């Protein structure tokens, strides 16, 4: 199968074919209907004309007998475009009229019969016969009056109509094939472009995109959404790359430390108690590694948007209540105060565990890094409010805050600010919060509480 074969297999071809068949059928039906109706109309007109002629001629006969009839027929038959007239005697001989050789069978018809015949005109070409409708009227004395009307024009009209429809169908088929050829070719070309692009993408060049013609047709729409999909895939691939880079960095460091410590213990030797201590600290290090790893996996899965954690209808105010209940004693023990102020209900669609974890991370951070300087007491405020179409859950502390320049870094994966690096934790707390927000279709905003950090979780209202 060559290029033609491919053209024939296009959808455009199949559609063209279907439309051709449908429209040809319709045209035929329409033509037949019009031709038929027209013919019927003309036929009935012919019959009416004949009837009125016979009526008027029989009037003449009644008034002036055969003589007047003959002269009237003679007069009428000489007019241009006249009807057919014939008066014959009982033996079938023509008395007067414009019909050359009336078939005897006609004259044998009884009074009032209507029939179609072919006839020869007196003034026409010899041998050429015309179609006509005639009616016979019997006169006393065996005479017969025949009045008819030429109907060959009606036949011609019918032929004309059918001829026109034949041309119409031929033109239609031709146009159909031509348009199929061009449409099919352009469709094939665009599809081939897409196939070519996808081959290049598959070969690893993820930066390539489908061409947009700007015609806003379905192909452009398809290309647009495919390009969006490719953007997403590229972002995910980049994310994956980042994750593996970060794993290499932030997991290898503690692993190296762990290994070094064990090696040192082995080299130095010592009492059972020394070993026990080394093992305990190694286990703590391992636990921390597990924590980092868990957080990483969780973030990666959420960023892929495939956490699969089922969303349910929740009231964020309940989540706030519960998390405050969990943390209040901790903050109080740290010499601080945890307050909650919320609108209720705050309806949203989400995952309670993930949202609780996000809030818990924010409060954890506030406890760890939000201690105010100068011996003032730590004060953490949780607020739940509406912000336009969003629900805004905010954790505010009165500590040193994060300088504006560092805020973006604080939200990025492994974005542990230097002062946080020295403390325990995965360094993924805020990035996990950001991932939870994104999974819920929202975002995290870090602001200045003057003094302190204002971390708010903006989530779409249900």
């Amino acid at each position: 199968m060559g290029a033609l074969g491919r053209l024939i297999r296009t959808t455009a071809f199949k559609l063209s074919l279907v439309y051709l068949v449908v429209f040809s059928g319709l045209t035929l039906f329409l033509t037949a209907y019009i031709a038929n109706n027209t013919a019927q109309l003309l036929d009935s007109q012919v019959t009416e004309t004949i009837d009125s002629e016979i009526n008027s001629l029989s009037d003449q006969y009644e008034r002036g007998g055969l003589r007047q009839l003959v002269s009237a027929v003679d007069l009428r038959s000489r007019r241009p475009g006249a009807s057919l007239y014939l008066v014959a005697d009982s033996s079938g001989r023509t008395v007067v009229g414009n019909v050359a050789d009336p078939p005897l069978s006609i004259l044998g018809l009884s009074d009032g019969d209507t029939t179609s015949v072919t006839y020869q005109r007196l003034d026409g070409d010899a041998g050429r016969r015309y179609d006509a409708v005639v009616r016979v009227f019997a006169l006393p004395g065996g005479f017969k009056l025949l009045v008819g009307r030429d109907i060959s024009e009606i036949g011609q009209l019918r032929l004309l109509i059918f001829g026109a429809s034949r041309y119409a169908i031929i033109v239609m088929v031709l146009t159909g094939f031509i348009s199929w050829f061009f449409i099919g070719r352009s469709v094939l070309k665009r599809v081939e472009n897409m196939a070519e692009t996808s081959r290049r993408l598959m070969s690893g060049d993820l930066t390539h995109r489908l061409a947009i013609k700007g015609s806003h047709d379905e192909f452009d729409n398809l290309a647009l959404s495919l390009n969006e999909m490719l953007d997403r895939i590229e972002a995910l691939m980049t994310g994956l790359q980042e994750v593996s880079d970060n794993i290499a960095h932030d997991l290898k460091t503690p692993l190296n430390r762990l290994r070094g410590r064990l090696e040192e213990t082995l080299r130095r030797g010592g009492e059972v108690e020394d070993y026990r201590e080394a093992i305990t600290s190694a286990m703590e290090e391992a636990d921390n590694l597990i924590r980092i790893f868990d957080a990483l996996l969780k973030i990666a899965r959420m960023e892929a948007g495939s956490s699969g954690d089922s969303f349910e209808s929740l009231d964020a105010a309940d989540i706030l209540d519960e998390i405050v209940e969990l943390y209040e004693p901790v903050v109080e023990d740290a010499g601080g105060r945890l307050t909650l102020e919320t609108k209720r209900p705050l309806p949203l669609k989400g995952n309670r565990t993930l949202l609780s974890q996000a809030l818990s991370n924010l409060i954890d951070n506030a406890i760890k890094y939000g201690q105010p300087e100068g011996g003032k007491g730590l004060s953490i405020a949780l607020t739940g409010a509406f912000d336009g179409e969003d629900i805004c859950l905010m954790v505010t502390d009165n500590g040193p805050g994060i300088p504006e320049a560092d805020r973006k870094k604080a939200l990025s994966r492994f974005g542990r600010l230097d002062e946080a690096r020295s403390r325990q934790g995965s360094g993924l707390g805020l990035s996990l919060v950001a991932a939870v927000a994104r999974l819920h279709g929202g975002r995290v905003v870090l602001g200045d509480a003057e003094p302190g950090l204002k971390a708010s979780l903006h989530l779409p209202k249900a």
Partner: protein
Amino acid sequence: MRILVIEDDSEAAAYLVKALDEMGHVAEHAADGEAGAFMAEEGGFDVLIVDRMLPKRDGLSIIEDMRRRGDHTPVLVLSALGQVDDRVRGLRAGGDDYLTKPYAFTELLARVEALARRNRPADVETTYRVGDLVLDRLSHTVTRADTEIPLQPREFRLLEYLMRNAGQVVTRTMLLENVWDYHFDPQTNVIDVHVSRLRGKIDKGFDKPLLHTVRGAGYMIREAGPDRGGEAAWVRSGG
């Protein structure tokens, strides 16, 4: 207790079986899904520890089969998959508890023991008693030495859970999951603070403490002090 361990990692399984034996249990091991399903069908175990991903047969399908047979032996599902939905799937298949690898052996032991007690009459009792501490589940009152101790609702639930598992180690994660219904790991040790507040209410002013800290493992409520915390603190599995 007879415990069946269905786990394909032979080293982890051998370690687990040995550690369970040391704790006074009788543990048997099946190395793949089919052998595990066969041994589970034979029955006679108090608790099953089932890995989710096994050769020959999926761990969850073994549990589903057991439940269809009407076998309600408690099952602890072990898995490297720790996402919330994996947990839900494990529990929906008929698992009673879910533990993510890698885990601490103390955590596993505490959960296995809690599972084994699950079907005991303790659950239908209306009052729990440890020494002179009495918790009435119907009237929601707690008394010690006949003096009523006022507790917050959450403190009541915390104490209720500890007393239902009296004499057994209860880990922080178990408390977080069962009392607060949170399935994540808060970085601050919030549970310790809640327990110490509870301890302040039920133990303060009495010469015999009931609520004990088991070092490296969790908490235990009982009349006498914890007798195995020292060991448990450093017995851990690499899973």
